[in-house]
């Protein structure tokens, strides 16, 4: 198995063997058909637009939201309009603990084949797919202390 821990070897980048990727048609290479994308902050705004764009390009989309409950309706709409899988889940990620848990659960379920934890469903969307794209679009606007500049 290739060790992918380091991109460097002795201070130099590891050389690729053979030609670069030959994926055929340029348009096909833009397509996200059969890919899986996770978009955080996708309950509204830019994140939602990104989720819709990924879906239009054929990706199955996992919507993660922090507080915007309308994400559920948006996920349903995306699923119906673009004919892709689109699920959503509340996820708060200011702390690294939750992320670690997600990864740990996913690994655990792989080795034991027990019931699928929700977090895993979101990473892989149950279709045997890889996770391909992750878009981090969550935002806190600067909204306090404006009297004495923001």
């Amino acid at each position, binding site marked *: *198995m290739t060790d992918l821990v380091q991109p460097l070897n002795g201070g130099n980048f*590891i050389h690729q063997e053979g030609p670069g990727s030959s994926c055929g048609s340029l348009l096909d290479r833009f397509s996200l058909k059969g890919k899986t994308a996770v978009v955080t902050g996708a309950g509204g705004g830019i994140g939602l637009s990104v989720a819709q764009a990924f879906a239009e390009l054929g990706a199955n989309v996992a919507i993660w939201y922090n507080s915007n409950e309308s994400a559920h309706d948006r996920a349903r709409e995306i699923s119906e309009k673009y004919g892709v899988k689109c699920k959503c889940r509340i996820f708060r990620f200011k702390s690294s603990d939750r992320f670690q848990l997600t990864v740990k659960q996913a690994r655990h379920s792989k080795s034991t084949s027990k019931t699928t934890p929700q977090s895993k469903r979101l990473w892989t969307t149950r279709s045997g797919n890889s996770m391909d794209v992750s878009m981090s679009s969550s935002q806190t606007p600067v*909204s306090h202390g404006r009297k004495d500049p923001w």
Partner: protein
Amino acid sequence: MVNGPVEHYNDVVATDLDSTYFCARAAAQHWKRQKQERTDLEGRQLQNFSSGSFIATASMSGVIVNVPQLQAAYNAAKAGVIHLCRSLAVEWAQFARANSVSPGYIITEISNFVPQETKDIWKDKIPLG
């Protein structure tokens, strides 16, 4: 900034920078494993995985300083996001790409709280108005 609440700084950095780091870290663990093992989490062979792609939403504020609103914390967090992605692109070269996008002002519900006269000042500075 001088008299602003420190909690707000912490909140902005936690959401805009820390969360991006944690998200990137969690995603990269999957991509690295997928590239190495060529399987999904249930051990089935992956058909169409080439490499991962991480895209962070940064901001023009990570490159320029906005006026008239002064927002050092936000600007610093976004500059951090941009350079985090540059660094990750090198670190992940074997199994994933990393990029950031820096939008300018976008009309979304996130800026609903901003008074119209401030938005007009922003538009004064946008070539396409």
